[in-house]
């Protein structure tokens, strides 16, 4: 899938992840009175957002977390991956999942008093789809009829509005898709689908500095590179009313600096513990340490256009997969903060089933060697794993390589690129020498997001040049299913087919590792790795 959450790469590149099993949250430790101050301000270690704060122009983690506090979309999802209704009263598809009717809850307002209507949504989306408005996430509307007229791949668009969006009345509008998508409602969770008030469209620049949303918090101030302050908004109509008085998003330039502040209670929580502190953060924070599942997965993927893997027999890749001692590496290199993967779909999403990869994701050096041999081996008996050296990947890549070499005799070395930019450039240009490391954080909690969007023939996320007709057919079938559950089931079939082609070697599921200060309680993160800010409670000083 194009787009959104991508700035998330900030997070996944370095680290760790996590969903909601919650060993965090809850304990009332610390030298506080234990009384909660509903007006208390939570400080959150963040960074300077990359772009102006417009919902469809915010892809990276620093901006997303602020935008998500200011806006409430049509729907959201719970820990089981089921859709929950927020600003929408209902979102219903027709029998082909092609025309979706959205009914809004009446009476919602923006922070400036303007009513949130069907028009607020339709106008905002049309605005963001237009490339002239420079909204980075506009690709998220591509399923809607008429998007290609407004936003063609090349050249100037021929229209300003998408014909697939129709306002029926103040609280109803319809979305017509190019083809049926049973799980379309999940996509509506994302920031590009937030509404904007009419003033925003008249003066997007001013709006980007002072966004006005419909969410639980409203913007108080944005002091560039220092902090963004939001306060709880009394007019909020949603279910999840803030249990604190506001959030102070402090800009840190390094996670290490944030961590040291967190230890001294100068900041209340942070998104991810830096790698250098993984070994001791549990000791430092005791029961204030957080470790939760996070719907993200790490893999190493063969480049099927490279010399090493061009005409490779799948047995070789299966063999390489069995040659990796995932458990031991997770324990040693990651201090136990990752969990061995048993398939291509991350935990905590709809349709996740353990064990899709079967015996091929279990360490078995003997069989590994046999498989590589039976498959005809690798030209030159040599492979490399490409990674970006600006993030701490070297350790685990080396460990994976050692494990492969030791088990199969195939010589494996790391192939560092200077940084993430250089890494993606090589991948985009299809110049990877053999294999590359990859990570994927969910766009929406549905197994299809980890399958069709990564391994479908020719899709944007497929950087290894993988192609399998049978898999494509299975995903097409899954997309044509009538219901979400049926679709998830069919996608599960498609995942099982990957065993026969092995487009990527699953390694680990991520976890969210974080901690919180003595000033607050009830700190939790959702399966996308984002903090649940409205639930945090602040102790009276």
């Amino acid at each position: 899938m194009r787009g959104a959450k991508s700035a998330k790469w900030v997070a996944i590149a370095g680290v760790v992840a996590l969903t909601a099993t919650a060993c965090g949250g809850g304990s009332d430790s610390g030298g506080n009175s234990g009384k909660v101050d509903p007006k208390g301000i939570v400080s959150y270690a963040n960074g300077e957002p990359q772009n102006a704060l417009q919902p469809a122009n915010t892809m990276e983690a620093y901006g997303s977390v602020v935008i998500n506090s200011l806006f409430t979309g049509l729907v959201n999802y719970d820990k089981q991956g089921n859709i929950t209704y927020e600003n929408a009263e209902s979102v219903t598809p027709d029998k082909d999942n092609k025309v979706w009717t959205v009914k809004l809850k009446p009476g919602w307002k923006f922070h400036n008093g303007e009513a949130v209507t069907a028009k607020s949504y339709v106008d905002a989306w049309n605005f963001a789809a237009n490339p002239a408005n420079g909204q980075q996430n506009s690709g998220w509307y591509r399923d809607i009829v008429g998007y290609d007229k407004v936003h063609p791949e090349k050249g100037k668009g021929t229209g300003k509005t998408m014909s697939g969006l129709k306002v029926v009345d103040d609280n109803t509008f319809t979305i017509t898709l190019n083809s049926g998508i049973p799980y379309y409602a999940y996509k509506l969770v994302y920031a590009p689908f937030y509404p904007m008030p009419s003033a925003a469209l008249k003066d997007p620049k001013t709006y980007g500095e002072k966004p006005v949303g419909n969410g639980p918090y409203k913007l108080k101030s944005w002091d560039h590179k220092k902090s963004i302050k939001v306060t709880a908004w009394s007019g909020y109509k949603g279910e999840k009313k803030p249990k604190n008085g506001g959030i102070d998003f402090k800009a840190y330039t390094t996670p290490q600096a944030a961590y040291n502040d967190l230890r001294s209670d100068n900041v209340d929580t942070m998104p991810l513990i830096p790698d250098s502190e993984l070994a001791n953060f549990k000791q430092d924070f005791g029961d204030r340490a957080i470790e939760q599942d996070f719907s993200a997965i790490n893999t190493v993927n063969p480049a099927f256009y490279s010399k090493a893997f061009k005409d490779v027999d799948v047995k070789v890749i299966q063999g390489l997969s069995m040659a990796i001692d995932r458990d031991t590496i997770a324990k040693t290199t990651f201090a136990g903060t990752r969990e061995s993967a048993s398939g291509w779909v991350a935990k905590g999403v709809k349709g996740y089933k353990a064990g899709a990869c079967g015996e091929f994701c279990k360490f078995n050096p003997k069989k590994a060697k046999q498989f590589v041999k039976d498959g005809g081996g690798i030209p030159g008996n040599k492979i490399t794993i490409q990674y970006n050296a600006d993030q701490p990947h070297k350790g685990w890549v080396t460990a994976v390589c050692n494990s492969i070499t030791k088990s199969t005799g195939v010589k494996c070395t790391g192939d560092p690129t200077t940084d993430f930019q250089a890494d993606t450039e090589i991948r985009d240009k299809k110049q990877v020498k053999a294999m590359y490391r990859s990570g994927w954080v969910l766009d929406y909690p549905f197994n299809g997001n980890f399958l069709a969007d990564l391994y479908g023939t020719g899709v944007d996320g497929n950087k290894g040049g993988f192609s399998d007709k049978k898999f494509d057919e299975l995903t097409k079938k899954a997309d044509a299913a009538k219901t979400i559950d049926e679709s998830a089931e069919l996608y599960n079939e498609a995942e099982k087919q990957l065993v026969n082609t092995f487009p990527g070697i699953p390694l680990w599921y991520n976890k969210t590792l974080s901690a919180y200060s003595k000033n607050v309680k009830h700190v939790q993160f959702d399966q996308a790795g984002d903090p649940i800010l409205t639930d945090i409670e602040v102790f009276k000083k």
Partner: protein
Amino acid sequence: MGRYVARRLLQMIPVFIGTTLLIFIMVNVLPGDPVRALWGDKPPDPAQVAQIRHDRGLDLPLWQQYLHYMGGLLQGDFGKTIAGNRPVLDEITQAFPVSMRLASMAWTFELIVGITLGVLAGIRRGRFVDNTVTLFTLLVISVPIFVVGLLCQLFFGNELGWITPTVQDSENMGQLLVPAIVLGMVGLAYVARLTRTSIAENRQADYMRTAVAKGLPRQRIITRHLLRNSLIPVVTYLGTDVGTLMGGAVITEGIFNVTGVGNLLFQALARREGAVIVGVVTVLVLVYLAASLIVDLLYAVLDPRIRYA
């Protein structure tokens, strides 16, 4: 004197053009496309990429980009950032005062403490004070700055709680004190050593013997005769160090979360923000040039035998 200054100022022009051109080229040959990088792990949108490249003039040939840039610069326009489309000048005017404050505190610290230690050690060469100073400076020079910084942060911040581990407000002088001391540490060691050697050497000079023989007070001998003649190498070092302190604070600023020039430069490099890198370096080059001019002029004040025709 006037002609000398004029000539020096004229010399600055080619240096200025040369450095900006070099940096400009270097930034552009780095692998990785900053516009593509805005999309992170996810696939970029070709129409948006084209739009952004066009907006920022990145679709022009390099030499045209450079000419545009220099043309803008002469009118005080440093260009726009790729991410966020913000004026680079805003970023610079936000970061420089912070670094200037930090650097001047560090500089004052190394100047006062460094020269004092150097003079003490030089006068009592081979004695206890000298050995202590030598040992101390050796230690400071050999321990990397980030070790000192992190130790200070952990010890004074996390353990003792005397300071907040990071700077909460980069405009607060009190909070900048510890980072400034850490930043000035290495320079201090060099200043102390340079002063010591120079003092120790000049103490044997004929004019010193004369001054002592004339029966001048000790205080006067040291400050007027010895120190003044010994300061030339130290002043050279202190002058060039102004620039180093401004731009070289990447590590210290990172550890203490100070939003100064070092941090700005580091982030800009990581994000390949060419306009920001060139802009910051341009200002740093100006600082360097100005500092070295002032140093050269100071020579004449310290030693009147040096004259500028």
